[in-house]
């Protein structure tokens, strides 16, 4: 379970409505309305993106009166389906989906089984992307692909849909770059 104890708060007097915060929010929790950024509290995971990019210093993180608790019990879904998604994605269920929140791939797979159709929805169900919001974006995309769920790339630069992996490298490239242990590293993961 991930406890979200903070919330992004916009100082409307300082906000100039540039929209930079909305463009970087991993859960699409921010919209610019009437030239001011507005945060939807139930979607805010209090990562660092909006506070970091705001050129006016208009966003701060404040404690929530009641922490928002997120998480999916992976045991509550079909375990064979979790394994199938993981196999398709070349992931191990115990791999980290999100290092910052200590959430595993199996939790993300469970979220998809329960209906998550986008990386944002996985984040809102599991609490991933509440930290660096970076590495978990890739893992979320791979879990969705492993489950056969197609998702649209959002407009703008919130997330670019690209996910080449070790398993996508064609044999001619493996042969071209012997010093990079491409096949050998696949064996490392196959053992797990």
């Amino acid at each position, binding site marked *: 379970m991930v406890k979200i104890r903070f919330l992004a708060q916009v100082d409307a007097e300082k906000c100039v409505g540039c929209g930079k915060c909305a463009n970087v929010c991993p859960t699409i929790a921010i919209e610019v309305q009437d030239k001011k950024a507005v945060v939807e509290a139930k979607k805010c995971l209090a990562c660092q993106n909006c506070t970091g990019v705001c050129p006016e210093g208009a966003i701060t993180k404040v404690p929530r009166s009641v922490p928002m608790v997120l998480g999916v019990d992976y045991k509550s879904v079909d375990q064979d389906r979790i394994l199938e998604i993981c196999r398709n994605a070349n992931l191990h269920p115990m791999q980290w989906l999100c290092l910052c929140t200590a959430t595993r791939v199996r939790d993300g797979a469970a979220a998809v089984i329960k209906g998550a159709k986008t990386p944002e929805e996985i984040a809102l169900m599991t609490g991933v992307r509440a930290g660096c919001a970076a590495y978990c*974006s890739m893992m979320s995309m*791979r879990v969705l692909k492993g489950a056969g769920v197609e998702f649209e790339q959002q407009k703008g630069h919130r997330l670019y849909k690209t996910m080449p992996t070790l398993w996508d490298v064609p044999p001619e490239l493996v042969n071209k770059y012997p010093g990079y242990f491409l096949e050998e590293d696949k064996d490392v993961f196959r053992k797990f």
Partner: protein
Amino acid sequence: MSNQVAPTLTLASLKKAMPGYIRKSVYGPATPTGLPARRVADLPGIVALPVQELFPDVPKAIYIEGDDLAPVRKATEAALKNVNMDKIKPDSSVNILTSQYGFMIMGGFAYKEMVKTIKEVVEQRTGCRNIRLRVATGFRIQEPAEIIEHYELDKLFDGKASPALFIEKGVPIETELGTMYGIAKIYDADFIIHAHHGELRELDMHRMMSRTMKPFSMSYARMETRSIHHMNFGPRSSNLVPRVIYESPFVQSKFTFGIFMAVSPQGIVGIEAGNDLFPIDRRLMLLAFKSYGKIRELYNEIKECVAVMDGTGEPRYMIGGGTTFGNLTEAELDLFDLDAVPVGLGFGLYQPPPTQPKLKVVNPAIRALVMNHFWIGVPQMELATSCPMFLVGREMTKLVDEDCMNNAMLDHVVTAETLDAAVRFAKKVARTENIIAFDGAYGAITCSEPLAEYLIQRAPIANQRVEEVLMPKWLKQRGFDPSEAL
């Protein structure tokens, strides 16, 4: 070949430790001064163990913190003499690309001097006046702006210094492995100059493979591409990602040259530059084996210690004895050996599967951690869950409590009011008098007298093992002849 420590090196000859410079940041604890109340070097019984005297045969430094910067400038000018700048015309636009870590090496002054010299030489030789600075970062979004302000880089670059962030607009780069995304601001000029350093940093990830190219899939890249590098490939194969980006038609159309501070635990030993990164890669690799190889092996000799974080940056990359704390946390693995396979970031740094060679995630020789001063900005829960951790001061506790990248760290640590109290408790818990500080110092290991005495005895053993057994293997694995060793 065996190499003895300098005969003058005894415990009695050791001087007081001199910690490195700490830069104030919003990512550090908000103490009244922005700095720690006390440094480890101020504690009784703490000394500076000089690295050059432990390993006299490694290349000597031309600069360590506090020295005159003139040698850095001269070395930069000399390195640039052989660089072809014909692509750059008077009406070209050029981005000099820098990474945040260069500004953490010995206070950042040498890196700034190198960058300043690059700009002046390029202007002089090409007539180009539209030279801009891009400051890239890891995950600390506000850090580039802090760097620009702190080092007055906007003034240096006539108002054209700008952060380049991993969450900003990207530019697609087609590579042999598929589409990658660079940060658009990095590439928004006709040409780029790759101004970096050869500091070892995370050897467990780059394995000294394509080291000079790493920023192309990290600092200069969008978060998806960083994830591709760290999460979608294996512990050795991941280093193909930066290479294919560097070699892509898009990057090659803009690339002019690379220039690097050649860094060792001794300090900055020179400046390397060239239009082709591969020869520089090889030279930095040979330097790393000779210098970092030996200090890593010496750290592998440590069987019990309390490690203290007392510098700028996140613990994993904090410098002690001229090398990062990450090299102590994994000292028991020979990470220059390409047959060694710690799993990559995607599998997990802090809960390895049963077949992993590491017994626990963090080197078991680290019996306790004292966090006197550090910055947040990277996931590092493994430190808190692997060994007893003591935070120093309430400001540090508040910082950790609000750190979104280590969501539950406070559940695993305790706080002491002062550094003295924290170290006292840590020594009791760890049952050792061995203290080693990661305080930013190059050229010397800040440590307690018992540990210094022990390391003086063990240095010749570490040296011999590297020279006679390990380095020949590292060289052979990468296609070098052992005679090419420095």
